[in-house]
């Protein structure tokens, strides 16, 4: 069997739909990973010990086990206790939480790296603890965290492929649909790889630009 890429253009539509879903999942899961990551970092640093300790345990669990296994646990395990989530949201939230654990570590380090003088100045100007965090410490920490969180988001983009096992029709699953009609796995997986690579390059470009801007603000 030789290679024949001439069948690929016929399936351009389905691949394009796949890449759009991949991007959408990346944005949604990426958003969750950043918001939850910040929440975990703030809670473990400034929250009550009763909250911080178990949270660290959860982060450890998320970082020490494979994403695929976590997705299976959410998808099949939750239905066992009667919670039926659609596959799409299980995948998006699972992926988001997985990377929230990684982002939390970065945000925690960035929060600690903010000069304590900033918080002291804000507090002595009469800002409350939460206002100090919101207006002065957090924004500065976000700038420091940006390059690494961006890196995680790029890794997250590639891990959206894993969601295909839950039957979510992103790029890989749509490529598989095309393969089941044409029996040309190499051609379609290769095309999918190229599409991922293009999205990846675009994301790297945007993040580099954002990082430069953040550097300029600092």
């Amino acid at each position, binding site marked *: 069997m030789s290679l024949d890429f001439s069948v690929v253009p016929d399936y351009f539509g389905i691949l394009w739909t796949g890449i759009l879903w991949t991007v959408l999942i990346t944005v949604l899961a990426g958003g969750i990973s950043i918001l939850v990551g910040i929440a975990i970092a703030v809670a473990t640093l400034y929250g009550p010990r009763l909250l911080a300790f178990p949270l660290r345990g959860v982060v450890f669990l998320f970082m020490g086990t494979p994403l695929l296994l976590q997705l299976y646990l959410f998808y099949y395990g939750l239905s066992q206790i009667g919670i039926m989530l659609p596959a799409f949201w299980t995948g998006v939230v699972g992926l988001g939480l997985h990377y929230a654990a990684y982002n939390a570590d970065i945000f925690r380090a960035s929060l600690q790296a903010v000069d304590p003088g900033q918080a002291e100045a804000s507090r002595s100007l009469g800002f409350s603890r939460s206002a100090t965090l919101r207006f002065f410490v957090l924004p500065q920490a976000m700038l420091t965290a940006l390059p690494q969180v961006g890196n995680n988001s790029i890794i997250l983009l*590639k891990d959206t492929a894993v969601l295909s096992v839950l039957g979510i029709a992103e790029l890989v699953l749509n490529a598989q649909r095309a393969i089941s009609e044409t029996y040309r796995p190499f051609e379609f997986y290769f095309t999918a*790889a190229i599409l991922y690579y293009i999205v990846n390059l675009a994301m790297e470009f945007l993040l580099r630009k954002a990082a430069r801007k953040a550097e300029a603000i600092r």
Partner: protein
Amino acid sequence: MDIELIRQILPFLAQASVLTIGLTVCSLAIGLVVAVTITIASFSRMRAARWAAAAYVSIMRGTPLLVQLFLVYFGGPQMGLELTPFLAGVVTMGFNIGAYMSEGMKGAVLAVDRGQNEASRSLGFGRFDTMRLFILPQAAPLMIRSLGVNTVILCKSTALVSTIGVVELTYSAQRFVTSTFKPFEVFACAGAAYLIIVAAISLIVHALERAVDHGRKAAL
């Protein structure tokens, strides 16, 4: 929670863990060879070698491991490359993690004092011999941590080869789920097994770091 079930499946999951460890170790071995090759190529005098190394790393890191795995396992036969699931998994993961590991290695090589390179070169050693005999051995202790982090990532990504039919931890857990309908217990047990393996890798990496540190202090 079905404790009895957990007690029953534990020996089987332990067996599957051995395969997960095997996948990790074999991929790691391939990955290290790939990473060293890329590192040497990226410090080569030939522009083509440097360019090829950079392109390789960029492509490997720019596409999902799952797609690479499917491309090799399902697409391979079209190119006359028929591999068993285990072999396809180990080769793909090895070549993939090698690209990531080469980044840490490059950093470590750059961290070695430039004088070492200059001294070796002025003593008449070739560029390759300088790298092999003086730079890489000195860079090795500096790369242990990043190699350890990548090994943990590698170990977790072995779960992906369950999708091409290797009966490692994740796939064997899936099988138990279909026969017992207790996904929570089974997947939680598999997760615990991964945690134990990952913790063991971390311990080994720490021990290696300490041993190397000790050796360096003793030498001075």
